[in-house]
């Protein structure tokens, strides 16, 4: 036992950091890149990938706006247009929005919790690879003209074997399986990390609001993703082996798809939105210089949103002819979601009143968030009403509504959060000037593009049309929307230029450049592989605003990867726990899984044959390496 090195009075400062670095740093070179299980590496990678898909998805939207700028335009063929809008929706929802929210959490949460790595780090690596392969499957398919073309919602029977022949929809469905495996894995990691890896003293009521948002989001993912996995599984079974789930003749039902799909896809909106409220809470706290008021109300609002979001899916199905009584329940439930959202909005505004706002770029994004998201929220209240929804459903009004919710409510906070945490990611501050320019372009462009869609929708323009007739009064508004998208693209380019220029500069960021209160700012910018040399201790909800030096605890092993598990509610130190080394097997397992999934599109036997390599990969993954080192060894 004496051979074990631990931090403490005897081992601190540069020597400790050097030894911790040796223990925690991934292997050098390509091998290290492939085998790393560091949450920061994976998280950064995840963010880059998701942002790449944001860019790709945006390119598709530019294509659509070009086509729709003029009536009866022949720029893009209908078959291609249908692929494009399907790819846009799928990419944005499954490959960008949900992954990027999880990705940010993968990066930030362990730092915010004051721990050294995420729970189940190998699973984390596996999750990334799975996500990547799923995303590549979809996009390679699209590039090869096998992109899905039945809409991102894949309503049966249009997506079924008869009306979507070929492999397009199969590719979509297996992409869902990939992202579902990835998303569920991350959700479980994050839940465990938040509940068990918190710094000593960070009881649940001292947890940053962002962590609450991620906790609720993760639980929602765990409860909702199985629905889409199940229905896409049914769909692919219908398509490949001839099951009858969605064949009305054999007493299957297209509405079964809609129920299962929206049971997932409505909570998904909140899965995207809740982390964004977490971003907003953190930014508001930092840039007003005080905690968000009414912490319990804020937490309750987050939990209530998560809870209510499971009771509203039928409002996507008001036009399907279900019993009226059910509709009234879902109207009320949908309206009720507005209550927790309004509580959060109020608390943020009241915090602004009580604090001293600083108009840094992240804060501007929060203001833009409130201005736009509230519009989206209120138009959401409109579509919750059955008579109004029966007019708005599947028109451009709804397109406007959910872009206000998702872009206003999630992308703006995300851009704010990226700006906010950029020094932590990279060790460099983004340029405020370019940042503000990008902000204004994106904000104005967004409103130019999407506000007119409310009106085109009210004028009767349906969604998902590849073209529209002239002289319906839609021409000018559509042109305006297209111009707005051009402005957004300009803003996006400025944002990218800002990032690119900043990354060329040397690292200059202090650990806590914004004078924020949460623990991630106690680590260096960027954080070392082990995050914190000692285990930080928390005494309040805003630990970094406490007076005096940061309290820490010592005694974790330095020569082996070890971190601290605390109790779930009070965060009392409980167990020292070994954290796994980097390994190639998660990648190989993901490859084996990808082979199985992709193969299954072509023959059901791939499932049987593919199990063997997958089993081998999993076995190698879980089999402990070397001789046992962790104490104690039972004799």
């Amino acid at each position, binding site marked *: 036992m004496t051979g074990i090195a631990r931090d403490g009075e005897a081992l601190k400062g540069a020597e400790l950091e050097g030894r911790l670095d040796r223990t925690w740093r991934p292997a050098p070179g390509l091998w290290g890149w492939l085998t790393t299980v560091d949450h920061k590496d994976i998280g950064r990678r995840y963010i880059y990938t998701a942002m790449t898909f944001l860019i790709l998805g945006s390119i598709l939207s530019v294509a659509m706006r070009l086509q729709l700028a003029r009536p009866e335009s022949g720029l893009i063929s209908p078959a291609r247009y249908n692929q494009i809008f399907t790819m846009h929706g799928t990419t944005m929802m499954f490959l960008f929005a949900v992954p990027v929210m999880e990705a940010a959490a993968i990066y930030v949460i362990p730092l915010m919790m004051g721990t050294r790595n995420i729970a189940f780090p190998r699973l984390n690596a596996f999750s990334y690879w799975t996500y990547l392969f799923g995303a590549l499957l979809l996009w390679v398919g699209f590039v090869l003209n096998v992109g899905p073309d039945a809409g991102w919602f894949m309503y049966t029977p249009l997506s079924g074997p008869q009306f979507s022949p070929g492999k397009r929809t199969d590719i979509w469905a297996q992409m869902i399986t990939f992202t579902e495996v990835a998303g569920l894995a991350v959700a479980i990691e994050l839940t465990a990390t938040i509940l068990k890896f918190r710094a000593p003293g960070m009881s649940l009521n001292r947890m940053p609001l962002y962590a609450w948002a991620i906790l609720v989001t993760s639980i929602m993912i765990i409860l909702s993703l199985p629905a889409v996995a199940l229905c896409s599984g049914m769909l692919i079974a219908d398509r490949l082996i001839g099951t009858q789930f969605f064949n*009305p*003749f*054999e*007493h299957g039902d297209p509405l079964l798809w809609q129920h299962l799909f929206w049971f997932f896809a409505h909570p998904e909106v909140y899965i995207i939105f809740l982390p964004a409220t977490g971003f907003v809470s953190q930014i508001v706290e930092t840039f007003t210089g005080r905690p968000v008021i009414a912490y319990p109300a804020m937490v309750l609002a987050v939990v209530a949103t998560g809870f209510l979001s499971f009771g509203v899916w039928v409002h996507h199905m008001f036009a399907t002819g279900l019993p009226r009584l059910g509709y009234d329940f879902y109207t009320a439930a949908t309206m009720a979601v507005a209550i927790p959202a309004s509580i959060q909005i109020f608390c943020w505004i009241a915090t602004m009143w009580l604090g001293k706002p600083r108009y840094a770029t992240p804060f501007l994004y929060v203001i833009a968030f409130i201005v736009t998201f509230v519009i989206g929220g209120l138009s959401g209240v409109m579509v919750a009403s059955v008579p109004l929804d029966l007019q708005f459903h599947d028109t451009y009004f709804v397109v406007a509504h959910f872009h206000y919710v998702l872009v206003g409510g999630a992308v703006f906070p995300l851009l704010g959060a990226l700006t906010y945490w950029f020094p932590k990611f990279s060790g460099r501050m983004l340029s405020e000037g370019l940042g503000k320019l990008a902000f204004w372009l994106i904000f104005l462009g967004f409103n130019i593009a999407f506000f007119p869609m409310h009106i085109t929708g009210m004028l009767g323009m349906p969604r998902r049309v590849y073209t529209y007739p002239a002289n319906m009064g839609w021409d000018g508004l559509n042109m305006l929307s297209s111009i707005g998208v051009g402005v957004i693209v300009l803003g996006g380019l400025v944002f990218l230029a800002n990032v690119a220029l900043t990354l060329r500069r040397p690292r200059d960021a202090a650990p806590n450049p914004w004078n924020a209160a949460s623990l991630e700012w106690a680590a260096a910018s960027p954080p070392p592989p082990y995050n914190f040399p000692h285990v930080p201790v928390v005494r309040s909800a805003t630990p970094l605003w406490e007076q005096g030096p940061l309290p820490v605890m010592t005694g974790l092993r330095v020569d082996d990867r070890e971190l601290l598990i605390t109790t779930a509610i009070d965060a009392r130190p409980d167990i020292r726990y070994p954290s796994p080394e980097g390994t190639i097997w998660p990648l190989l397992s993901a490859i084996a899984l990808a082979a199985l999934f992709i193969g299954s599109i072509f023959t059901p036997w791939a499932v049987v044959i593919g199990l063997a390599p997958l089993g081998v990969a999993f076995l190698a993954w879980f089999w402990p390496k070397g001789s046992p080192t962790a104490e104690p060894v039972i004799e």
Partner: protein
Amino acid sequence: MKKQRLVAMLAAAAALLVISAIAIIVVRSRAPQPVAQAPLTPYAGSSGAVTARSVGDGDDGQWTMAAKNFASTRFSTATEINTANVSRLKVAFTFSTGVAKGHEAAPLVVGGTMYIVAPFPNNVYALDLTKPGAPTKWTYKPRPLSAAQGVACCDVVNRGAAYANGRIFFNTLDNRTIALDAATGKELWQTKLGEINLGETMTMAPLVAEGKVIVGNSGGELGVRGWLAALDADSGKIAWRAYATGPDKDVLIGNGYHPFYAMDRGRDLGVTTWPPEAWKQGGGNAWGWVSYDPKTRLVFYGTGNPGPWNPEQRPGDNKFTTGVFARDIDTGAARWYYQTSPHDLFDHDSVNEQILLDMPVKGRMREVMVRPERNGYFYVMDRGTGEVLSATPFGHVTAYKGVDLKSGRLIPNPAMEPREGQVVRGICPSAPGMKDWNPAAFSPLTGLVYIPHNNLCMDWGSYEASYIAGTPYVGADVKYYAGPGGNRGVFTAWDPVRGRPVWEIKEDLPVWSGALTTAGGLVFYGTMDGWFKAVDQRSGKLLWQFKTGSGIIGQPISYRGPDGHQYVAVLAGVGGWPGAIVSNNLNTADATAANGWGVAMADLPQKTTAGGMLYVFSLSR
């Protein structure tokens, strides 16, 4: 002590249980299974009143029309073969038709010659019964168009010829009615009555009465407008032709038309009960049996299903399909009409035979016709007025809730009504009905009607059908399967007076052959796996059976040979609608093959093979 008693009692109870279980198994495994245990009461003797009226010639031992006589009793008065000696029945001679399709015809025997119409190509053979081995006397080849095979809905069958005044009359698949000189086989005349390019064919056996040859067309599955025509027996000229749909003048509805029920009255019902123009493809083909009552000079026949099968495409009652007509034989004018299945839902054609009887109804003797109907009801109707006196299900029916005797309407079961886009399951009887064309026989010995029929239910999924002339016009995918009990066929002895079964024999395969009763107390029928059976009219006990070379779907007959002895003859040769699985070499992996028989008949290819052979039996001497 107490404990021991308890154990003993338990043991006794267990033993009892085991024994009774074994007894039940033994009892239930015995076949045939009488519904009511003997003794059987409702015989002619005991009820005293039920007699078949012999409206044709007296039985001279000949067999001149498929149904034996105008009353369609299929009863032979010969007694030489009877319950006591039938076990000695042996093959007298055989004859191959050389056709491997379904043989549904009844052979005719007139004056020492047997006449056989084979399925397509409809060759007619005259066999000389006076010579040993019954050599061919002459052969007539009508050479029908081969394309006619493509529009024959349910195998290229022919249900037989008719004889009158030294002439043989028969129909060809390509819509010709031909008269031959019975002695020489020379063609006397032929009349073309229909157009195969419109999907029309002719398969029914003509009826000849009062110098008229009564014929009708087939093609209800191809949107063919149905008709019944009377040809002059001497010249072949069309005396009249009555359509089943369209304006009253086409249907030959005039002042003499007095249907019993209000639902069948009105002007131009053949047009107004259809969506615009739909009556032109409306079906209602008279492809089944025709009976004749010389006393009233009325011809009775039923009309087939409306086109298409999918009922949602033809809202309305779809007059005058799926109903029974009584027409004047001289003018064709309709006397009355009764629609058995208004707005037919399940292809329940109304073409089955009508057996003309005099029998007591509610204590009063009535001139009736009895119809074991495809929709599962055994109808007793007043043949003078068309009034339904009773309609009793003779099998398991879920498709309907009954017949309202006040309005005459069949009451469909709403849960079983076909809906476009969704399969409705568990519809009994299935589309081929409780009983298809295969005719029942009546025996005055017992007063019972012997019904060869089906025990089938089905799944029905309808969708919109598109009419393209000469192609099927159906709009439904159907699948048949055995009804309760698991047997697909039943042979039932039915008491028409009391409206209940007396005994029934469960047959594995649908019973697709006709029945024959004899004064010897026997009833004959065949099965689709090739067993030709004789059973006791009273008990249903199997007395004799013989395995033929191919499944039997023909109509057995009995005659007195030139040697004075009684013979029984039947054509074996599997085919027809269910038998097409074998005769057309279909793929039974497809449940919808042969319009729904695919899986229901999946075992048929193992049980029989195609072929066409006449078997004639007599007592071994």
